[in-house]
């Protein structure tokens, strides 16, 4: 079974890498949303610094939302999802592996880019490290929660807008904890509490979210 799941992970990652276009679009989206803020708010680094962590995090949230449509969408349309549901291993594990592949290929680039964007918004030193770290802990959670919404809205007309309505409220704790950690550091405090709570959320999400995703996929495929 481990071999099967490994094969699935490799397949998903290589498919996303093959469709370079999509992955790059999401990353470009992340960068562009972030650069829109200085244009809207003004170039004063003082102000940008204030909103910096929140801006990067909101941009990551939206980028994750944009990328989710593809998570199950292609497999659903070409019938692969049925085959995945018929694999001789639990659907929740299949879902977890798909989310992992999604995160490796789309979440990691966001993490890697975030210090650069944070720097352009006036964050420095430790703040950038914590920003990247909070994204490391937070973006898998975004993918996990997002997968539930993506599965529930599979094959619906206007699924994208509906998915945003379903998922974004659930993203709130991740957003608060993630950007809050960086703000703590900005005011000379430690970010331990925030980061460990993010970790706790992740520890809760990894076993629970795939169950919900599997349930949603069963409903959609029924």
């Amino acid at each position: 079974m481990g071999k099967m799941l490994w094969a699935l992970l490799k397949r998903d990652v290589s498919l996303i890498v093959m469709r370079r276009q999509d992955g790059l679009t999401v990353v470009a989206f992340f960068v562009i949303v972030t650069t829109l803020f200085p244009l809207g708010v003004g170039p004063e680094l003082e102000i940008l610094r204030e909103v910096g962590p929140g801006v990067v995090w909101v941009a990551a949230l939206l980028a994750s939302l944009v990328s989710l449509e593809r998570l199950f969408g292609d497999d659903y349309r070409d019938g692969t999802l049925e085959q995945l549901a018929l694999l001789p291993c639990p659907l929740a594990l299949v879902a977890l592996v798909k989310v992992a592949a999604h995160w490796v290929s789309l979440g990691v680039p966001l993490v890697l880019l975030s210090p650069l964007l944070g720097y352009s918004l006036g964050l420095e030193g430790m703040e950038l490290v914590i920003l990247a770290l909070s994204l490391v802990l937070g973006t898998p959670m975004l993918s996990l929660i997002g997968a539930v919404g993506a599965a529930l809205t599979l094959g619906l007309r206007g699924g994208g807008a509906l998915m945003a309505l379903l998922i974004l409220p659930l993203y709130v704790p991740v957003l608060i904890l993630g950007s809050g950690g960086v703000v703590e550091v900005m005011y000379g405090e430690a970010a331990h509490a925030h980061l460990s709570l993010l970790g706790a959320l992740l520890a809760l999400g990894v076993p629970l979210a795939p169950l919900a995703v599997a349930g949603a996929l069963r409903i959609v495929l029924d």
Partner: protein
Amino acid sequence: MMAASDGPAPDRDRAQPRLTGHGLSCRRGDAALFSNVDFELHAGELLFVRGRNGCGKTTLLRAICGLTEPARGRLCWDGRDIRKLDEEFRSSLLFLGHRDAVKEELTPMENLAVQDGLRGEDGGDDARLDALERMGLAGREDIPVRHLSQGQRRRVALARLLLSPAKLWVLDEPLTALDVRAVEMLLGLFREHLDAGGLVVATSHQPMEGLRNARALQLD
């Protein structure tokens, strides 16, 4: 409700049926598709599900796979409920639906390799090449599927039949988009599978002739 014309399988009648459906009813939304459908399928038999459009052929097939839960009734594999068997049942099942489950970006060879890997049945490149050749795709192994025709895609999907050790084939409209030669070849494949003690459940709008041990299940 049900009319089954039993194929001549006298020697197998005494054996236990491997796949049975009992009192099956399915609904789609608020409309009942079919109700109280029974069937039995022994090793080496083919079940030909027939009926007009929208009578629930696909739903029945999906129920047999466990993708759809029937509103009423029981489906058993070797006498045990398929829901209880779960993974054990799924490892002896091969399902081909309306959609080919073939990735456009990948070549036929890559598609087969990925599917083998997912099911943990790695037969090696040679087996895959042989399968594609038998499907009449020799020389197209390394062209991305997006450049292939509809019928060729279907054949890539059908090549899995040659590679999988699954005993039960559940095929939804396997003959669509295939030319006469390919249909012949596929029926030959069925014969081999049945002779080896396999089971086939299939729907088709075209007649499937020349198959011994074929039972028909009329849904209406």
